[in-house]
């Protein structure tokens, strides 16, 4: 396989492939490097198309010494044309929705966790763990169960009940930490030093993050081996956003697709917008914030890849915007009403930003835009409470007619 080593994104120091995630020289994040010099684009494309119906079809571009496997293989989620969504927000563009809620545990986190758990097994770990805002917790608990590994899942104790229930069911050690996600993350960074566990988003983070590239690869494949002109993606730590960019770039560099890097628009909630703020202010660091938003899956106040997300948005001529909690609720409804896709609050953030870009006239006529929906609405049901009214009637025709008299009168 093509995987080569780990390399610091800051000072370029190189390290062997192991369970390490930051540079001992400068504390910069480590990233997996590959040697694709012997890759033949035509042959690689053939291998992909003959591959599995999930992310392992992209094994040539993932960080394994051997062929990875996983009984809960995620990926090849639907990419749907969303003309009525485009029309509702006044866009004369080709809008596509990548519905990544259609994964085994209903979020894009299945991709990164499948890669991290397979890597944990390759490295000989028997316990996996994570610091999570919820979706990752679901995925780690499920993939650990499927692989027969022990797991420890750390979340803020005040998480949405649906996400806690959908994690505990897998028989994991679910740990609710009294604090916010950044507190959970700090604790896990410390635990990773003292426990021989594979923390998927701490000591295995360089591998884990690679899983997000598969969303870019699928997009290209599903668009008939072409690139979108623009993508709109949520930003929490900034890892998904930057790895989408890396995925597109790898295939551009290797000749698997022609064109140029899409324009990248990032989406954050106003109540947790350290990356959007850094973009607006022109900073090359993100000032940490204390999150206060209904979009809990994006509530990372100290985003590890924030600076790289800002750089990527700038480099591609895009931007990073934020939306209010009310705009999030309304965007969840907008997506549901126009596409039949019910997304969680993070998807509301993303669609809310799409609507904002449309209102500002930033999306040109005919542009091909892909919107990444990363999670499932059933996990954040509270966000839809009181956004509609149920008609309650007696089981009689009179009661129905009385309730719907107004409708009939105007019919």
């Amino acid at each position, binding site marked *: 396989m093509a995987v080569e080593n780990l390399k610091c994104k800051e000072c370029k120091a190189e390290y062997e492939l192991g369970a390490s995630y*930051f540079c001992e*020289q400068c*504390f*910069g994040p480590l990233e997996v490097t590959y040697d694709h010099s012997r890759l033949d684009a035509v042959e690689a494309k053939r291998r992909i198309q003959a591959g599995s119906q999930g992310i392992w079809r992209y094994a040539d571009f993932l960080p394994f010494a051997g062929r990875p496997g996983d009984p809960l293989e995620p990926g090849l989620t639907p990419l749907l044309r969303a003309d009525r969504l485009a029309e509702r927000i006044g866009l004369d563009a080709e809008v596509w929705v990548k519905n990544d809620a259609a994964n085994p545990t209903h979020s894009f986190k299945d991709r990164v966790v499948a890669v991290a758990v397979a890597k944990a097994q390759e490295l000989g770990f028997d316990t996996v763990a994570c610091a999570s805002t919820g979706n990752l917790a679901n995925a780690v608990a499920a993939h650990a169960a499927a692989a027969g590994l022990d797991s420890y899942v750390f979340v803020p104790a005040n998480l949405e009940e649906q996400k806690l229930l959908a994690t505990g069911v897998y028989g994991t050690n679910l740990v609710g930490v009294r604090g916010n996600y950044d507190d959970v993350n700090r604790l896990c960074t410390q635990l990773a030093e003292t426990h021989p566990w594979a923390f998927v988003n701490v000591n295995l983070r360089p591998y884990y993050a690679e899983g997000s590239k598969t969303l870019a690869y699928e997009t290209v494949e599903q668009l008939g081996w072409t690139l979108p002109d623009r993508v709109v993606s949520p930003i929490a730590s900034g890892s998904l956003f930057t790895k989408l960019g890396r995925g597109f770039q790898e295939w551009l560099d290797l000749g698997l697709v022609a064109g140029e890097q899409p324009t990248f628009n990032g989406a954050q909630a106003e109540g947790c917008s350290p990356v959007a703020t850094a973009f607006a202010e022109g900073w*090359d660091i993100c000032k940490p914030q204390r999150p206060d938003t209904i979009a809990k899956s994006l509530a990372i106040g100290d985003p590890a890849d924030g600076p790289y997300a800002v750089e990527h948005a700038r480099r591609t001529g895009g931007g990073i915007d934020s939306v209010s909690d009310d705009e999030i609720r309304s965007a969840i409804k907008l997506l549901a009403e126009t596409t039949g896709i019910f997304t969680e609050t993070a998807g509301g953030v993303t669609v809310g930003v799409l609507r904002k870009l449309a209102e500002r006239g930033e999306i040109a006529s005919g542009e091909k835009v892909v919107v990444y929906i990363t999670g499932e609405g059933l996990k954040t049901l509270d966000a839809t409470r009181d956004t509609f009214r149920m008609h309650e009637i007696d089981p009689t025709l009179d009661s129905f007619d009385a309730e719907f008299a107004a409708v009939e009168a105007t019919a």
Partner: protein
Amino acid sequence: MSVTVKIPTQLRAATGGQSEVEVSGGTVGEALDAVFDAHSELRERITEDGTLRRFVNVYVSGEDIRFQQGLDTQVNEGDEVTILPAVAGG
């Protein structure tokens, strides 16, 4: 003030294997300077031009110093100063 500075595993080669260093200082900056005086190799790894590198987080008794006064954050007798990489999570 006498404070304890916790050193991440990956940097312990620079402290002769010590996981924590006892130093004195009135602020986080002074405490870290005292650590660097004793273990000079750490200065370059953790700071750049007198400020913390952008992927280094420092906490005083669990609180991120960026929510306080940064390197000027006061430390009290017995406080624990923790240095951690900022590249986890998400």
